[in-house]
C-alpha cells in the first residue's frame, strides 16, 4: 500500500501557486500534515481526493496513476473535507445509506456498517432526526462516519476535530490510532496536539512547499537542547519577543515563564524537554529565514 506524490503543483488564477514541487511517499500509518492557514494543506488534500487536478506533477496509488485511473483511489478512499454539507431533509441513516450507494457498497453490508458507525460517533439516539436539525459538532461526526463507510485504505481527514468537544476529540484521536494499522491516514490540521497524539509521520508544509518530512522523534531531535524556560519580568517580554522565538508564556508569581527556542540560552534560562510545538515553530521560523531544515 503506497501513495506517491511527485513534484505536484497547483496554480490558481494568475501566477498564484497554492502548491509547488511537492513530493512525498507514504505507506501505512498516520501522516500528520501540519502547517499554518493558507499553507496549501487543503489544496493537497483536494488533489489526493481527486477533487482538484494538479497543474503539474503526478500521483500514484499502488502504482496506478491518478490522472489515468482516478477510480483506483476513489474506491478505497474515505474523505472528510474541511467544509462539507449534508442533505437537511434526510436523517443520519438515510444520508449514510445514500453515500454508501454512491460509494458502491452492498446494501446489507452497508446497513451493518452504518449501525456500527453511528454507535461509534454517538449518533445512534438521533439517527432518525433530520440532519438539518443537527448541531455543527454532530454534522462533523456524520462526516467522520461517512468517511469510514467503505472501510477505506486511504483515509484523508482535513481539520477533523473542528467543532468537536474535548471528549469527542480524544475519542476521535483514539479512533484514528486504531484505524491506522493497515491503511494510510492523512491528518491535516494546524492543531499540533492532534498530530502529537496520533501521527507516526509528520509533514510540515508552508507556502505550498514541503518544509520537512520526518517522524515525531526526528523532529523532536532537531530541537533537542534548544528549548529553554526563561523567567523574566512581564515588562521585558515585548523586547524578548524581538530577540527570541518564544513558543509559550505563562504568568507566575515570580514573573513571566517564557518558553524559548534558541541555539544558545537567554540569560539565566534553564533547559527543558522539547515538545512537537517547539519543533514546529523552530522548523517554520528556519524555513521563513530561508534555511534548509
Amino acid at each position, binding site marked *: 500500500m503506497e501513495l506517491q506524490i511527485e513534484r505536484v503543483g497547483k496554480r490558481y488564477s494568475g501566477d498564484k501557486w497554492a502548491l509547488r514541487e511537492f513530493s512525498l511517499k507514504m505507506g501505512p500509518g498516520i501522516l500528520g500534515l501540519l502547517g499554518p492557514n493558507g499553507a496549501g494543506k487543503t489544496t493537497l488534500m*483536494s488533489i489526493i*481526493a*481527486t*477533487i*482538484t*487536478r494538479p497543474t503539474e506533477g503526478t500521483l500514484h496509488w499502488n502504482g496506478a496513476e*491518478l490522472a489515468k485511473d*482516478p*477510480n483506483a483511489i*476513489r474506491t478505497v*478512499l474515505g*474523505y472528510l*473535507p474541511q*467544509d*462539507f*454539507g*449534508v*442533505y*437537511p*431533509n*434526510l436523517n443520519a441513516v*438515510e444520508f449514510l*445509506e*445514500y*453515500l454508501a*450507494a*454512491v*460509494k*458502491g*457498497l*452492498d*446494501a446489507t*453490508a452497508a446497513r*451493518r*456498517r452504518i449501525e*456500527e*458507525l453511528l454507535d*461509534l460517533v*454517538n449518533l445512534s439516539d*438521533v439517527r432518525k*432526526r*433530520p440532519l*438539518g*436539525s*443537527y*448541531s455543527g459538532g*454532530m454534522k462533523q461526526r456524520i462526516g467522520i462516519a*461517512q468517511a*469510514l463507510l*467503505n*472501510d477505506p485504505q486511504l483515509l484523508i481527514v482535513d481539520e477533523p476535530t473542528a467543532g468537536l*468537544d474535548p*471528549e*469527542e476529540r*480524544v*475519542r476521535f484521536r*483514539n*479512533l484514528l490510532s*486504531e*484505524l491506522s494499522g493497515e491503511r494510510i491516514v492523512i491528518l491535516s490540521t494546524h492543531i499540533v496536539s492532534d498530530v502529537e497524539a496520533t501521527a507516526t509521520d509528520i509533514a510540515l508544509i508552508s507556502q505550498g512547499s514541503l518544509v520537512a518530512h520526518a517522524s515525531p522523534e526526528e523532529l523532536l531531535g532537531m530541537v533537542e537542547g534548544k528549548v529553554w524556560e526563561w523567567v523574566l519580568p512581564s515588562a521585558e517580554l515585548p523586547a524578548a519577543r524581538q530577540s527570541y522565538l518564544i513558543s509559550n508564556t505563562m504568568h507566575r508569581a515570580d514573573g513571566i515563564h517564557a518558553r524559548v527556542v534558541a541555539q544558545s540560552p537567554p540569560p539565566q534560562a534553564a533547559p527543558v524537554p522539547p515538545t512537537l510545538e517547539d519543533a514546529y515553530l523552530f522548523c517554520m521560523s528556519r524555513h521563513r529565514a530561508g534555511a534548509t531544515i
Partner: protein
Amino acid sequence: MNSLHILYQMARADFLERVRRYSFLVTLAFAVYLGYSAYSGQVVLRLGDYRGVYNTAWLSALMTLVTTTFLSLVGFYVVRNSVDRDQQTGVGRILAATPMTRLSYTAAKVASNFAVLSAMVLVLMAAAIIMQLTKGEGAVRIGALMAPFLFVVLPAMAVVAAMAILFETAPILRSGAGNIIYFFVWTALLVAPVQASLPDMAGIGAFMNSMEQTVKAIDPAWKRSFSLSLGSGDFGAAPSRTVLWQGLHWDAQMLLGRILWLGVAVGLTALAAVFFHRFDPAYERSRKRQEARDNTTVAETTQLSSAAAPVHLTPLPAQARRSRFGRLVICELRLMLKGRRWWWYAVMAGLIVASAAVADANGRAGVLAAALLWPVLVWSQLGTRENRFDTGALMFSSPEPLRKQLPAMLTAGILFTAAVAAGPAVRDLMAGDWGAIAAWTVGVLFIPTLALALGVWSGTSKTFEAIYTVWWYVGVVNHIRGLDFIGTMPPSRAPLLFFVLTLALAAAAFAGRRARLAYA
C-alpha cells in the same frame, strides 16, 4: 445623512459583489441579445397591419416596451438572490449584529437590484440609439429617446427590484415556489391594469392608447389591434403600412401614474422589511425543521460515551464492494422526494388519479398540465444539490461520478416524471394511441433532462424553475406546437423535435458535469 451613507455603502458593496461575478456578464449578454433581437427585427411592435415610422419616438417606445415586459420577467430571476447570498456567505449574520435597521437593509438591497437592472437598461438604451442611427427614418431626438426610459422603464425596474426582495423575505414567496408564483404575478401585472384602463407597470396602456388614436385618425376603419411579439422577420418587411407616431405627451396625469409605481416600489420595500427577520436561524427553518430542532436539544444533551472506551469497527468484506446501479437510483428517488409535507403528496396523487380518470380530452390535458407544474421544485433539484448543500466534495471524490452518479440521478428523475404523468399514458395505452405514447415518452425524458442540464450548468434551481414555468405556460397550457414538450393535444405534438432536444440536453448535462470534475 449617516443613514444615507450606510445605505449607500451597503448597496454599493452588494452591487460590486454582483458585477464582479461571471454571471453578471451573462446577464448583460441577455440584454445585448434583447437589443439585437429588436435591432434585427425579431421583436415586432405592430398595430394590425401598421407599424410606426422608425423615428425616435417609435424606436424608443419599442425598446421601452421590450425592456418593461421581457426584462421585468427575466430581470426578476436575475436579481432574486441578494438576501440569499448574504445567507449563504454568512455576511448576513455579521450585518444582523450591527445597528442596521430592517428597512435600511431591504432598501439597500432594492437599490442594488435596481442598479443591476439599470445596467441592463443602459444596454437596451444604447441599442435604441444604434437602431435610430442605422435603421431610423428620422433624426435622433435625445429627449424623446430618453423620456420613456426615464419615466416608464426606471419605475418599472424599481418595482421589479423591490418585488425581488419581497420574494426573498416573505414566507412561501421566498421558497422555490416564489419563482413560479412570480410568473403569474408578472402576467397579472402586465394584463390586468391594461384591461382595467389603469396605469400599468410596463406602460403598455399608455403607449397602446396613444398609438391606436394615431392610427384611428388616419384610418377610421382600422380594427383595433396591438401586439409586441418576439419572433422572426426582417426589419421593416412587415407589417405593410406605416403610421407616423410622434410619441407620448408627458402630462401631469401620466407622470402621476408613473410616480404611483415608484410608490408601489417603496411600499414593497417596506413590506419586505416587515418580513425580513435579520437572518435569525429560527425563521430560516420550515415548521417541520423547527420541530426537529426542538428535538435536537434533547439529542445534544445525550451523554457521550467515555473517551477512553475502545473503538472497534468490523472490517468490510471484499464482496461488500458491489456497485448496484438500481440501489443508487432508489436512493436518488428518496432524496428527491424527502422533506415534502403530506399534503404535497396528496395533491400529487390526486392530480395523477384525476389525469387518468377525466374522460374529456381537454379536461385531461388541463389536469396533466397541472400535474406537470406541481412538482417543479422536485425537478429543479436535479444537478443543483451538490452546490446548494455543499456536498460536492463528498460526491465527486466517490467512484464514477460521471458514469454512475449522474445517470442514476437522471434515471430517478425520469422514473419520477413517468409516475407524475402516468394518468394519460394509461388511457393512451389502452386506446392504442401510439402518437400520444411517443409524445408522452419523449416528454417524460425531456423534463428531467432539461432540469438536469440547467441545474448542472447554472448550479441553481432558479434557472429551471423560471424557464420551465414560462415554457410550461406557453407550450403545455396553450398547446403550442414546437413548445408543448409532452404533446397534450394531437396538433401540438412534436416528439421528434423534443427527442433531439432531449439528447442535446443530456449531452450538455454530461459535458457540464464533466467540466466540474477534476477527473471523469
